[in-house]
């Protein structure tokens, strides 16, 4: 890793403010993937998530001077922007697209294993995407993006206690939905039709 890549976000922002293209490109390279994964989990769509990533970094470019390091890490700041943009886009589209794009099979050599993993992932994603957004976003931030409670509270603009309670409630709701699906899977097809 060279000195440029080891620069802190604050240093890169300072350099970008002076017009250094490479500094902004490094910021993009450093943060685009987490922002993309967050947006994908929130919108349920890979293409919509890419739109969110683009808008997030255009917003950062426009408001670069407004970022205040004292108010949190850059990643937290970007998640906050992404959250607002994702919510706006979801309202605009007026529907959450299905998370059925099995584009994460890459890297798994065994087709049977790939299928099993994809099925489990799909179930989990479906249940997650069906949660109300205020519960889904805390699970995505804490459990998938591995932010701590304080960082998540900063992104969402709520107290830490609210994050804890929403996280607990969200996991319980997710658990219930997974149980229902697991229960349905253990029923015979005829019984399943009756339940459905």
């Amino acid at each position, binding site marked *: 890793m060279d000195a440029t890549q080891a620069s802190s976000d604050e240093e890169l922002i300072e350099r970008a403010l002076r*017009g250094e*293209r490479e500094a*902004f*490109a490094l910021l*993009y*390279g450093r943060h*685009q*993937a987490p922002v*993309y*994964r967050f947006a*994908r989990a929130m919108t349920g769509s890979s293409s919509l*998530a*890419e739109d969110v*990533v*683009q808008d997030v*970094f*255009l917003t950062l*470019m*426009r408001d670069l001077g407004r970022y205040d390091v004292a108010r949190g890490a850059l990643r937290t700041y970007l998640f906050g922007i992404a959250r607002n943009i994702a919510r706006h886009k979801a309202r605009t589209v007026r529907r959450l697209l299905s998370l059925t794009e099995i*584009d*994460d099979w*890459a*890297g798994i050599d065994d087709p049977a294993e790939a299928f099993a*993993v994809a*099925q*489990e*992932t799909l*179930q*989990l*994603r479906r249940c997650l995407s069906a949660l109300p957004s205020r519960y889904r976003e805390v*699970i995505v931030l804490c*459990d*998938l*993006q*591995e932010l701590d409670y304080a960082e998540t509270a900063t992104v969402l603009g709520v107290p830490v206690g609210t994050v804890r309670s929403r996280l607990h409630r969200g*996991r*319980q709701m*997710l*658990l219930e939905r*997974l*149980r229902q699906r*697991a*229960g349905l*899977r*253990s029923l015979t097809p005829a019984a399943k039709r009756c339940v459905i």
Partner: protein
Amino acid sequence: MKQDDVNLNERDVRDALRALARAEEHLAARPHVEAAVMRAWDASAAASIGPRRGSQARALWAVAASFLLAVGASYVWVRSDVPVVATQSTDAGVAVGSSWPSDEALVWLDPDPASLQIVRLRVASATLSAQGYPVSDPDGDGTVDIEMIVGADGLARSVRVTASATQMN
């Protein structure tokens, strides 16, 4: 995750979420997104350098000042039963005229300034009032002139009431 076991607990959920996070570690936006972002950077940089920088900054300030004047005038119109604050309206219009804003201002309005278009409208002031936007009618002809900067998505980026009909031509 135990898919066939209905006795799942919260620990299983957390384990499954961790597994999902690991499975998605490789996901990222495709390269065309970075290309679009860096094109916007280049366009923004090109708009903010060169000999016209000072005049562009002054134009931006003029747009901002005219906006504040327009907001102030609208506030007075809304708050007052007296129908005409024509001098403020005229000032707001004259401050920037009906010319196209500077490149810098356009980048501020939209990351892709080339997609912006200006749309000029003449509408009945009574129609605006009925929609909840009471404006004065300085010319007394029952109409007001409006300029909108509209993006490729059809959404207005900027709206202002111009002073007189002559600016529409």
